[in-house]
């Protein structure tokens, strides 16, 4: 296998694994930029995956080829509703946001498995019939080198995820809404003084994170596993959290980190059929994203600073 062949093999699968991570990591950026820590991303992804698969199985006959896309909407709504629980706890009830996130994670897995067993009478769902299709982008896939790398047998969801990253960057850094969002996360009291409704901004941010995490979970389930069981998501949400931090709480940084982690994941899965890489023990590829995140946080790879008010409930009038 030549080097280029290896790239043709590995890059598309890296992008394919990265797409859900990008969306969920961007969701995390929104939430944490507003000052709400969201450890619950994993759980929100789980609910997204479950509802996505369930909707797909139930309505595949009605909607035909459009089913996976409509499932994304269903998944988005479900995860958004669950994220409201996190929002209420951490914004209105002043709960410890990490603890609330842990509760969301436990709840999401338990609730979706409970429903799977109730509906299907077994530990996992059936396999879906309508899934996202791979296709070659016309014309673009004929470009030498770039064509086979980025435009051959791709999923539309990957383009969608990358587009969302740019939209998120624009919203957070170029719009008044984004300015308020960041202000609320850095110095809520100053924002409040200037007439920004801190609680409302944070609610919106957490709901956006829920919506994106739900879509991410549904994409993961409908492209990679094609069914839902207890191990479907298995840490992808935490990997997205890692991507968010490694990307320094910046939407495009998070996208880059997610692409890189997708690369590491796909290497650990398909790497055994590539020379050189098959010499590296699998475990190093598996732990790479986590180790890198620790290095990034420790400041070995530039300084990663969280939004200043991240994790602190805002109590009016309290200094």
């Amino acid at each position, binding site marked *: 296998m030549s080097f280029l062949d290896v790239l043709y093999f590995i890059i598309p699968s890296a992008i394919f694994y990265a797409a859900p991570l990008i969306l969920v990591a961007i969701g995390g950026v929104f939430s944490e930029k507003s000052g709400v*820590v969201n*450890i619950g991303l994993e759980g929100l992804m789980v609910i997204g995956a479950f509802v996505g698969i369930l909707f797909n199985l139930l309505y595949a006959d009605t909607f035909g080829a459009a089913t996976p896309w409509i499932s994304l909407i269903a998944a988005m709504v479900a995860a958004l509703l669950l994220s409201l*629980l996190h929002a209420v*706890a951490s914004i*209105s*009830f*002043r*709960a*410890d946001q*990490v*603890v*609330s996130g*842990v*509760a*969301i*994670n*436990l*709840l999401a*897995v*338990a*609730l979706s*498995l*409970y*429903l799977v*067993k*109730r509906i299907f009478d077994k530990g996992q769902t059936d396999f879906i019939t309508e899934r996202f299709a791979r296709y070659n982008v016309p014309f673009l896939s004929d470009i030498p080198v770039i064509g086979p790398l980025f435009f051959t047998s791709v999923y539309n969801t990957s383009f969608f995820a990358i587009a969302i990253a740019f939209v998120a960057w624009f919203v957070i850094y170029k719009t008044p809404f984004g300015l308020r969002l960041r202000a609320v996360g850095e110095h809520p009291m100053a924002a409040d003084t200037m007439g920004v409704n801190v609680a409302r901004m944070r609610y919106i941010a957490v709901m956006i994170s829920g919506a994106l995490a739900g879509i991410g979970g549904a994409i993961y389930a409908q492209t990679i596993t094609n069914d839902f069981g*207890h*191990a479907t998501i*298995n*840490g992808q949400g*935490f990997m997205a*959290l*890692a991507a968010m*931090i490694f990307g320094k709480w910046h939407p495009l940084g998070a996208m880059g980190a997610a692409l890189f982690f997708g690369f590491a994941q796909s290497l650990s899965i398909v790497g055994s059929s590539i020379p050189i890489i098959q010499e590296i*023990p*699998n*475990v190093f590829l*598996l*732990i790479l994203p*986590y*180790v890198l*995140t*620790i290095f990034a*946080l*420790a*400041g070995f790879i530039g300084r990663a600073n*969280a939004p200043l008010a991240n994790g602190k409930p805002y109590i009016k009038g309290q200094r």
Partner: protein
Amino acid sequence: MSNRMTNLLVPIVSVILGLLVGAVIMLVSGYNPLEGYAALWNGIFGDMYTIGETIRQITPYLLAGLAVAFAFRSGLFNIGVEGQLIVGWFAAAYVGVAVELPKIIHLPLAIIAAAVAGALWGFVPGLLKAKFHVHEVIITIMMNYIALHVTNALIRTVSDGGDRTENIFASASLRSEFLENLTEFSRLHLGIVLALVMVGVMWFILEKTTLGFELKAVGFNKNASQYAGMNVNKNIILAMVISGAFAGMAGAMEALGTFEYVSSKGGFTGIGFDGIAVALLGMNTPLGVIFGATLFGSLKYGALNMPNAAGIPIEIVEIVIAVIIFFVASGYIIRLLLLRASAKKKEAK
């Protein structure tokens, strides 16, 4: 109502609310909640065997709860109990398999190995927190995954490509014939004694030693502790190390008592995360941890009876546990409501 009373009432109200939510979910999804909870009750207290198994389940919860609570008291949130438990599990099983020694040396050695492994896994986030001010929550989450993948790889190496190690030598086992006979041959083992001793150890460290005083002081106010001449960095690292050691011992309970081997895992055991629930419910006190571990350990084991006896998926109990955590975390609102209720009573008088 006194402050102390409200503090006690929050967990109790949370548990009741959690069970209520569970009942509503069972009702809505077409099951009979009374039947469900009866099955749960029988799964916990049905006969001597189930009681033995319930106590066995409580054992690692005690230690995992201690680990989370101990870190909390020093102002640290150790989500890494899960990872520290996994490395402890592996270390204990490895020592149990690799050598054969007289019991008096082998068993303590295996337990110490687990504690040291867990302590090491806690040392890393502690060091990073102290030296680089990195938030321990994220580091410990990452360390969990590193623990999972690394131990899986180690198990494969130790067992020549297999999925699990051999059973440990009897000289490293916590099994006790006396306890087994007492409980109709459940897997109840001597670990429960060790776990209860550790509850005492935590109480002793926190309440009776200078170290404990300093740890609590750092937990309350870092700057004040620094000003008073305490070494804050040293205390942060020590808190994580001791917390990790408790978590590692929880792993030893599984390695030397319940399973007597370690197998590679597709996902987490969940004990570490439930430890957070145990500590929260127990308000991070040693005595409270006993209460929390007993409740969650019983619920977890009793749930196994629910599919057979009532046809209800065991996940209902996990839902209940998640809801309880949610309410305990939202203690502010429960406190507020309790205060309002008692204020109204006063007015009526």
